């Protein structure tokens, strides 16, 4: 970005010298521009393939069910059926799904932040017996995909009476080894002087964590919160197994259910539902694009 603006200003100031370039024949100028034209052409094609389906989803969500299935397909809806979005709330309790998804995602995200920040702080800053061993066990647990343990986990939740409940959907999601790891790494990248100073001033462990370290960690908390929210909002597999009653369906479960009951004839409603499912993540992504990208790329180190 900075390079781009620097290049632009350089070109502007150097205009008199560059004037000779204008005398280049058109074919030479075209040859110079070709890499850039080719690049844009490929990228536009890529965007059509990768983002086009979402455009198609939104357009279909406003069509009538007959038009959605018509051939040849229409691009823009002939009549805009905004009522598809009200209809979907009467076909299925989408309001409940939305509320459940919001409760589960927000609570899981909050839980992940608090527990990961606390554990990350403890592992990076406090000395206690066995901390090294416990941390290695946590890292080892990272090797075990959640998908391996789900059968006994669901039967454990059923013994707790936690199937079809908010606590059943939230509590098992709360521990985040990746989160602990990220916060530990983050705190270790900070010098300890400020904390040492506050310790000399008599601040206890809690003061140091909440008043000194946590404010410094705000960017990390933000990035982790965004990632965690997107992950929890999109989660399907665990919720699909932990919930059987419509009252506790989240948006992805509700959509899957809508697909299996309504089958093919109402693609317009399914696309309206998909739009509703994707919308929150899309909004979060537009607002926090930089944090998401940097957290994804930075989370590897």
């Amino acid at each position: 970005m900075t390079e781009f603006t620097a290049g632009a200003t350089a070109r502007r100031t150097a205009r008199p010298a560059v004037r000779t370039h204008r005398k280049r024949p058109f074919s030479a100028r075209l040859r110079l521009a070709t890499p850039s034209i080719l690049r844009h052409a490929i990228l536009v094609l890529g965007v059509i393939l990768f983002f086009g389906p979402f455009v198609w989803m939104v357009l279909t969500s406003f069509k009538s069910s007959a038009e959605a299935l018509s051939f040849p397909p229409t691009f823009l809806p002939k009549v805009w059926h905004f009522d598809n979005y009200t209809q979907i709330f009467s076909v299925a309790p989408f309001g409940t799904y939305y509320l459940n998804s919001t409760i589960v995602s927000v609570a899981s995200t909050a839980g992940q932040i608090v527990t990961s920040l606390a554990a990350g702080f403890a592992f990076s800053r406090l000395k206690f017996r066995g901390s090294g061993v416990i941390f290695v066990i946590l890292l080892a647990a990272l090797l075990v995909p959640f998908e391996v343990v789900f059968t006994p986990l669901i039967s454990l939740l059923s013994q707790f009476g936690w199937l079809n409940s908010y606590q059943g959907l939230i509590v098992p999601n709360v521990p985040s080894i990746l989160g602990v790891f990220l916060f530990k790494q983050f705190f270790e990248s900070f010098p300890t002087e400020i904390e040492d100073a506050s310790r000399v001033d008599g601040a206890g462990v809690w003061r140091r964590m909440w008043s000194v370290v946590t404010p410094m960690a705000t960017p990390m908390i933000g990035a982790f919160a965004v990632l965690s929210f997107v992950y929890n909002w999109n989660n399907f597999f665990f919720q699909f197994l932990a919930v059987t009653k419509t009252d506790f369906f989240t948006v992805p479960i509700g959509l899957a259910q809508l697909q299996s009951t309504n089958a093919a004839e109402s693609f317009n409603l399914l696309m309206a539902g998909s739009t509703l499912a994707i919308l929150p993540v899309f909004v979060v992504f537009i607002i926090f694009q930089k944090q998401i990208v940097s957290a994804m790329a930075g989370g590897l180190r």
Partner: protein
Amino acid sequence: MQSTVDSTSSTGATAVVPRPPRVRRRRTTEEQEGRAGYALIAPTTVLLAVFYLYPLVQTVGYSFTTWNPATGQTGDFVGLSNFTGLFQNDEFLRAAGNTGIYVLVVVPITMAIGLFFAALLAQPFRGRGVYRALLFVPYIAPIVGSALIFSFILSPLGGIVNGALTSLGVAPIGFLNSEPWALISVMVFSIWQGTGYAMIIFSAALTNIPQSYHEAATLDGAGPIRRFFSISLPLVVPTLGFLAITGVIGALQVFTQVYILTQGGPLQSTETILYFIYQQGFVFFHGGTASAAAVLLLIVGIVVSVIQLRVLNRRDTIELT
């Protein structure tokens, strides 16, 4: 910490009184810190022990029994017969084979397309951020939602792909309910879904390459394609390794797109290992068989993860130097 101790000991000869209480006070703060440390890691460790490690131990235990998840009865100890049974179970072998095909096709193609876009977007130009964001969207969208979009686009009824085929004079294809198209469709979906992630990771790796390398090569007369293959590609090899391994781990756990797009059909042609485990555990209530398959998945996952840690460690040293 260290400096305060040193200063007290050096001045200790003259200042006689404060020394013993200071030592005692320090020990109590350390005890306090220790107790606080346990308290702070308790939520994560306890929850992990209950909802992760305990079920893991149970999975291993149940894999030797005829456990029934519906009744909760552990059943009989049957030794290794769940495991030997898996290798005689055509459905499991089919699922394992599908997962293998899936890994071999989806992982390299996803990485290749991701690297291609990352390379196109490596240099700053107008609109770069917009292109990158739009190419990345499939990765963060909920899989259920995007799989539904695909099931619509590929549908023989009103699906745009079959619409285009018909207008070209080709008969409509049942992409999601005929072999081998169903597996191909699921794999195309997964490639579409995962490319954005590969692109972002490769972008990070490409920006880490010092600009001077490219400038030097340009002065030596290397064109953009030559520069990519001689400079960029060798320097992103560690990232390639990392993505290959995370890709394999992800592919071992494929479930949602299979469930939404094909339900494992037609004739189990799109069934994956996780789908097999789900069906054994929650549809047929063969908890022992499900656990044995989960243990096998775990072993493969651990082997791959250990390789991953090795690659990551090596990657760190490369990045630091």
